[in-house]
């Protein structure tokens, strides 16, 4: 039963809530107790835009359990407008034509499911920023 593990990440996965250090202003995703840049512990919650540029990516051909029906699929590290990098799948694209530097935005998607009868896991995925 992995429900609590997934449920507690809901703010990050559904809304891309991050932690912003009240002292130095650095933004961490996911939020942290201690700012890794200045060591301060006062954090405020901010919502990320979900927009950014592809910093690197791969196309998964051999997928782990739970993802095999999606293969081949792209996973990227995206440099967000807010300055930090975030990992996520890149969908609605031709994985063979992705390029570092591509402009991406996020959509809400189904990430995985625990078998045919278990919990459905949702979260953000990146898509090409086509104004759709």
């Amino acid at each position, binding site marked *: 039963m992995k429900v609590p*593990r997934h449920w507690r*990440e809901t703010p*990050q*996965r559904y809304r891309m809530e991050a932690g912003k250090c009240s002292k130095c202003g650095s933004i961490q995703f*996911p939020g942290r107790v201690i700012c890794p840049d200045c060591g301060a512990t006062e954090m405020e919650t901010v919502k990320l835009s979900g927009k950014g540029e592809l*910093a*690197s*990516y*791969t*196309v*998964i*051909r*051999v*997928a*782990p*359990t*739970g*993802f*095999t029906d*999606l293969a081949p*699929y792209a*996973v*990227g*590290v995206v440099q967000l407008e807010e300055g*930090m*990098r*975030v*990992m*996520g*799948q890149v969908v609605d694209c031709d*994985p063979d034509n992705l390029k*570092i530097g591509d402009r991406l935005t996020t959509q809400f998607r189904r*990430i*995985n499911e625990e078998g045919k009868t278990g919990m459905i*896991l949702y*979260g953000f*995925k990146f898509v090409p920023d086509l104004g759709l």
Partner: protein
Amino acid sequence: MKEVAVIGIGMIDWGELWEKSLRTIAVEAALKCFADAGVDKVDTITIGCMSGGLFNNQEHLGSIVPDYLGQRFVPATRVESACASGGLAVRSAFLEVASGMAEYALAIGVEKMTDVDGGEATFALATAADQDYEAFHGITFPGLYAMMANAHMFKYGTTLEQLAQPSVKNHFNGSMNPHAQYPFKVSLEQVMNSTKVADPLRLLHCSPITDGAAAVLLAPVEKAKEMNKPYVVITGVGHASDTIALAQRQDLYSLKAVEVAAQRALKMSGKTIKDVDFAEVHDCFSIAELMVMEAIGVVEPGQSGAAVMNGLTALDGDFPINPSGGLKSKGHPVGATGVAQVCEAVSQLRGESGKRQVKNAKTALTQNMGGSGASSVVHILEARS
């Protein structure tokens, strides 16, 4: 702090060992190590194992290993740092001897990976990544290193040929290693045309799933001297950690934890990388070997691809890397790898490596790595006589 010597090494043949269990292979490697050292009782045991729980549903290796090794009541500790668990076991044993807590400290690395199917093994390995923010999105370990490869190629212009060459070199070396899981040569074309796993990485860029174990016995240098044969001293130990998530590293094309661990180990031994004759490094994927070359200072950042094509790291090159065949050819039973690297370094430094012997090997570096470079353990070993 006492000076610490390696007085025994034990390697078994690695592969898909269908008939042998986790405990059996751990014991077999330890017994070979005992035979090599001429010792049959130890003061302490450290076991490096990434995931007995997920691969074999067996935790508590700190009991089962000494029990089956005939060392009942000996204090035993299982350490874990993902694929760097073996290196960490050696470091922990080193600390026991160096501190004077123990005289004979046995370090065993073991992983029995074929008790689960490929999907479950992939899942177990992915627990070394950030479960909630990386594995959740369907990334795999080949995928993480593939992202580093793409970033390295983008940053430095590293080519697909350069990316393939470490596999060719390591299989050539491994073809001379009787313990290797895949002791055969592969061509550049074979590597570059093998099955795609996670672009740009293909099957022959990736280390395999392996059952294996290795053991080393550490003792104070005085004990080694009593044995009246060449021995090896661990003169440097470096260990470092970095962010678990690849996305949060300072960049995607370097391995900072490896760089820091190597600097610490070299500083402790009073040496620079130029004093090192060869290295056993963590080529879990071919890109890892290239990035480790840059992190430990064998070449400048961005120069690893050209260097490997020029033969710098070949067995007869100026700085041989992975004479054992590396993880690629020898196999990668994750928790065993770091210990096996030390076994190979000792074998080479003693001049016992046969056809794959590195000439005039006096000083060796071993580098073991966990996750996507989130932890690393480096040892400097020197031959003494």
